[in-house]
């Protein structure tokens, strides 16, 4: 047997159920890896006792029979999900040390399926960012806030905002992680770290217990090594949560593994020409083209389509998301929980100091943009206009899906960049979100599948976008590629 951390989650789950290994020894193994690779700064919180207690419970359930399908499988959660057993900070000083009295629905569902939580993973502050550089609380083993490092090249970003999740899975510190995606925060880091991640249809996964960034866009999803692993996890974490989340879809959970092996003969893959314009780096283009050729070999047909408002997705997203964020983050006022300034005069001064100290620059920037676009006199020109274009973007996809079954293209214009490269130029970072924002605005499921390596041997991700509730189809299309290629199995050197 190869080392535990080299096993896929699917295999690991099988071995646990077959009692070939115990949940406790599995947890101990991964905790050991986490300790050995603290330099990646992937984890914001660990609690070995809490993890081992969950593992022992999983072993007991396995021994008693009737354990869940993921019994004993270790998983780590993006620190956007609130958890009872670990602090929940959203990567912000505002919530340093915050303990939630309840578990997020996604965390609870996975736990009910038997998973054991390894800890909480780093992310951009309040999930705002695409390089994981805005995290404002120290990682485990670090005295000060530190950006997560990409295991393929530790001088590069793992992407964001689910950078800790992507880096941990890529470095085999966890077989899988949860992530959240508002404008690409699962897909882009998955692409940058060479792993597989899926953002389901908006409303498929409950948002209850996800610390809100942009409510109409936020969506949880799994990040793992393969589509097969993602299918197992997605089947466990999706499902209606109507009593807790009003935007939860009343669609029963599915077994997303069922259709993984469906043949792709006759599958029409839509290639949006706007995703292959001048902004796309050659190395990424080459890897994507190779993947598309592979699909043709598998029997699929490539169809050119148009998503004419692709570029507009950037301003639309950067109006709507900050608008919602500016309101969602109002609750962090120093009154009830979280950070409160140590010294202040009157109430207004308390608010000002608390928020000035508690929030980082990127969060403040988005709160200010959001406040501006919702202000009297600007609302119609910005927010309302953005909502109209958002609907048109969704319509463009429906138009496209008349001629294709899935849409394929790059996740990001380039491979992972050097840490610090775009830190001083937020707009440059925003522009790099161009290919992921449209699916988020339309509420469509999207995923990232490793499809090769570009410049400096950095991984490239292929983006697949499906129509509403077509997660099963996406996972099937991804899985077939992973049957024909081995990019998803490659491990960065030293891990």
């Amino acid at each position, binding site marked *: 047997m190869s080392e535990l951390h080299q096993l896929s989650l699917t295999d690991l789950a099988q071995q646990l159920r077959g009692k070939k290994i115990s949940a406790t020894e599995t947890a101990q193994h991964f905790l050991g890896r986490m300790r050995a690779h603290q330099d990646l700064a992937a984890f914001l919180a660990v609690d070995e006792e809490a993890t081992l207690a969950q593992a022992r419970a999983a072993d007991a359930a396995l021994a008693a029979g009737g354990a869940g399908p993921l019994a004993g499988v270790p998983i780590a959660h993006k620190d956007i999900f609130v958890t009872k057993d670990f602090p929940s900070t959203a990567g912000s000083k505002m919530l340093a040390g915050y303990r939630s009295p309840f578990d*997020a629905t996604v965390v609870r569902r996975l736990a009910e399926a038997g998973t054991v939580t390894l800890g909480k993973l780093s992310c951009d502050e309040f999930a705002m960012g695409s390089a994981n550089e805005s995290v404002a609380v120290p990682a485990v083993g670090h005295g000060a806030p530190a950006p997560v490092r990409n295991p393929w090249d530790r001088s590069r970003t793992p992407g964001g905002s689910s950078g800790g999740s992507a880096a941990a899975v890529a470095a085999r510190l966890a077989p899988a992680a949860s992530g959240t995606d508002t404008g690409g925060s699962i897909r882009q880091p998955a692409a940058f770290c060479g792993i597989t991640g899926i953002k389901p249809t908006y409303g498929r996964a409950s948002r209850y217990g996800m610390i809100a960034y942009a409510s109409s866009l936020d969506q949880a999803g799994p990040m793992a090594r393969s589509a097969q692993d993602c299918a197992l996890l997605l089947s466990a974490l999706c499902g209606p949560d109507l009593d807790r989340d009003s935007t939860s879809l009343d669609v029963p959970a599915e077994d997303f593994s069922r259709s993984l092996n469906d043949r792709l003969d006759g599958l029409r893959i839509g290639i949006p020409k706007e995703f292959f314009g001048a902004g796309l780096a050659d190395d990424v283009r080459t890897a994507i083209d190779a993947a598309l050729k592979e699909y043709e070999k598998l029997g699929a047909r490539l169809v050119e389509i148009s998503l004419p408002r692709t570029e507009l997705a950037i301003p639309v997203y950067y109006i709507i998301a900050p608008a919602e964020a500016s309101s969602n983050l109002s609750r962090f006022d120093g009154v009830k929980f979280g950070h409160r300034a140590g010294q202040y005069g009157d109430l207004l001064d308390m608010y000002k100091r608390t928020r000035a100290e508690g929030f980082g620059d990127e969060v403040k920037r988005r709160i200010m943009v959001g406040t501006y676009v919702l202000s009297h006199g600007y609302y119609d020109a910005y927010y309302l206009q953005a909502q109209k274009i958002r609907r048109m973007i969704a319509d463009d996809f429906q138009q496209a899906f008349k001629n294709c079954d899935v849409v394929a293209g790059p996740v990001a214009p380039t491979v992972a960049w050097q840490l610090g490269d775009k830190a001083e130029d937020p707009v440059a970072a925003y522009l790099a979100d161009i290919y992921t924002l449209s699916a988020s605005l339309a509420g469509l499921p999207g995923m990232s599948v490793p499809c090769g390596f570009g410049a400096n041997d950095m991984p490239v991700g292929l983006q697949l976008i499906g129509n509403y509730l077509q997660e099963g189809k996406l996972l099937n299309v991804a899985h077939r590629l992973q049957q024909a290629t081995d990019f998803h199995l490659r491990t960065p050197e030293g891990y």
Partner: protein
Amino acid sequence: MSAPKLVQGYEVVIGFETHAQLSTESKIFSRAPTAFGAEPNTQACAVDLALPGTLPVMNRGAVERAIRLGLTIGSTIAPRSIFARKNYFYPDLPKGYQISQFEIPVVQGGEVSFFLGDEKKSVRLVRAHLEEDAGKSLHEDFIGQSGIDLNRAGTPLLEIVTEPDIRSSEEAVAYAKELHKIVTWIGICDGNMQEGSFRCDANVSVRKPGQPLGTRREIKNLNSFKFMQQAIDFEVRWQIEQIEDGHAIQQATVLFDPDTGETRSMRTKEDAADYRYFPDPDLPPLVIEPAWIERVRGELPELPRAMAARFVADYGLPEYDATTLTQSKAMAAYFEAVAQACKQPKLASNWIMGEVSRRLNARELAIELAPVSAAQLAALITRIADGTISNNAGKQVFDALWSGEGQDIDALIEAKGLKQMSDSGALEKIIDEVIAANPDNVAQFKAGKDKAFNALVGQVMKASKGKANPQQVNDLLRSKLA
């Protein structure tokens, strides 16, 4: 409509905003209970505290109550309405925004009608929208600090907004009382004004007749009908004084101080916050299917106006009586119980609107707490109607019942010796004696002076110690003097 009453040559223009707390068991967006008076922060769950990760889920019971009001006052129930966020910072507002309907409210239009004296008035509604209440800041109990009680946070409110159709403080109070009656009648609000379940804000302005609307000032949180009238009267006088002195009225929010009887400005328009309203992305549009509306319609109780019409038709009551008796469900039920038991609806109405109401008002009692039961009042009225006792004697019995002197009507009549003289022989004897003793009056009556007859009746009544039946005395006396 008659010409509006002017105050010093000015027309008063009032619009109302009423916050009716909806009588749901749990909050509008969480499952925490809404009961009043619990220890601070014991009825606030994670959602009410706005803990990270929490989300609102609409309480359908609150929507149903809004539909009930809409159907009662002839409004349109919006098939699709939107919840928005009203953003502002305040310590007792946990999320930093209030969820409230802004652009598209659930209840649109409608009309509240009522009597002001004999005149029927109507006030048009603009809308009624659902929203959540904030918590409470407690400034008294903590030296140098404020306490926050979030028990009330998330309590469902229906804000009911009128057109500026009201033209006097009396009309304002009459409107508020009518609305209060409606919301309690249809069971959507307990109407408890002390506990803040029914809070009124009055937008008041004045103008010379025919002029455009004046600048309004909003008097906040009028939580008793008495203060409402005082506050509006003061505000109207103050505004007229300002204008007469050559000052323009500044749009402002004011508070009424019951101790001084004055209103004073809390904030002016310049301080008005930009609430940055936008549709709440956590709540999909509220969709109300016609079937839901029809189900609610089918469950509505008989409404005051329909009940009053029935009282006129079935019991032959004058419209005024019928309207007065349908001021509250309990009052109407009391009347029906009495009327059906004694078969004397008009007498029942007179007694309830007279003796019963007078005593209830004096002690500020609700009719549910009246010491005289409907059955007792019916028995009493029966004894008056069948001539056993006089109306005046009836009041003595009623007093005795009210003060708890006894329970049984006949026993009380017996004990107090109030039975009317039914033996006509004895009465004739008294009448003969009175005629003999008052020849002057007899002569005057025969000369055509009716007053003299009344004097004779009085003498007979006195001689019978009030036990004679006045009608019988009348008849006998007339026949003897004929």
